[in-house]
């Protein structure tokens, strides 16, 4: 019987840990909109904000913007959104 030919796995191998979604809130007072910094994403989010104002007239809407689309949001910015809002909407506008 011939020897097996042994080779190694070139990938990271570590499975990304699955993050559970945060519990959905029945009531909230403040919504944060995080603009990813792409051109025109502010227009999209302003439209979203006006729709939210119609649906939830008593809710406060805070607007945040990443310094640029080409870098991840800083921990400081994410902490600020988490501290100032009950829920936040993020996404990619392109």
């Amino acid at each position: 019987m011939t020897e097996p030919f042994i080779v190694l796995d070139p990938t990271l191998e570590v499975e990304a840990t699955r993050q559970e979604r945060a519990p959905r809130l029945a009531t909230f007072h403040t919504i944060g909109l995080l603009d990813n910094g792409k051109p025109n994403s502010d227009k999209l989010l302003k439209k979203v904000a006006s729709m939210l104002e119609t649906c939830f007239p008593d809710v406060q809407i805070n607007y945040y913007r990443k310094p640029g689309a080409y870098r991840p949001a800083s921990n400081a910015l994410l902490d600020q959104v988490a501290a100032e809002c009950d829920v936040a909407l993020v996404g990619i506008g392109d």
Partner: protein
Amino acid sequence: MDTQTEATWELTSRRIELDDPAGAMEFYYRQGWTDGLPVVPPTPARVREFLEYSGNFPGDILGVIPARNRVITAEKVAINAVMAGCLPNYMPVIVAAIEAMCQESFNLHGISATTGGTAPLLIVNGPAVQQLNINCGVNLFGPGVRANATIGRAIRLILMNVCGSIPGVLDKACMGHPGKYSYVIAENEEGNPWEPLSVERGIPASLSAVTVFAGEAPHHVNSQVGGTGKRLVLSIANTMMGTVYLGGNWILALCPEHVTIFKKEGWTKAQIREAVWEQAARPFDAFKRIAGFHDELIHPEDAESTYHYIHTPDDLLIVTAGGGAGGFSALIPPWAAGADSRPVTRAVGVCIDCD
């Protein structure tokens, strides 16, 4: 007893039993672990040889990508370098390149996920150029030289297999470019009348160094009959004035014929940079129209100001390289996000046990 922090030579990657090397090549294709070309099967013995050359323990962390929660270890780098067809003595250059790419200012996550389609270009300086036979001459960006072909390929395989930059998954490049297979050059220091790039960037001349730059594909600066430095500057500047370039650094690889022209007239690198900065410019409103800005973003006062394609002269990095015949230099534009990725230069580690 603290065994957790103790470094060992044990390879921890999953071992796969296959029948033979030919079967292994097909297996790696099926797993999606190649760049489209066949790979050299990474056996534990060969991987160990690579690690021994760079003096890294398998578990050494060479870099992290926080946005992807990815850690790049020396073992995974060595495995992918074997697969790329590298020689063990290429490892220190690859290690230095990975460490450079993981500096925050390089923004590895951004440049390897973007629709903008850049590739990390490696520019090698110092004794490693001759020791490893890295091409700095004829057919500079072309095929035929093992070090250039496989070091860059190792970088790409690491980006795909370790960092997750799989085309269509995390690598969203609209066009990409051929440098995404391999993108490695060296500076021709013998033909260079100025300081080498690495020395300009703070590395002692006696050391080898690698500079990483997130760039588009090279564009020719075709100037065969210009004859004067001033005309060359015009050719260079006009090659730069494409559509949407929003600042950041550019690489200018000057071919020997063009270097000779500048040298004869006594130009310094600083003078070339300054002159290119001055000439590669348009009225700001014209730039905005060419770049496709909406009308509401073009203001009357824009006609009074000037847009420079390199925002400051120092943003132009000049290297001497290319074939001895032909008046073709090359410009490498930055990533679409310009200054959101900056080039990084790092000295290549020295193997104290090697000859």
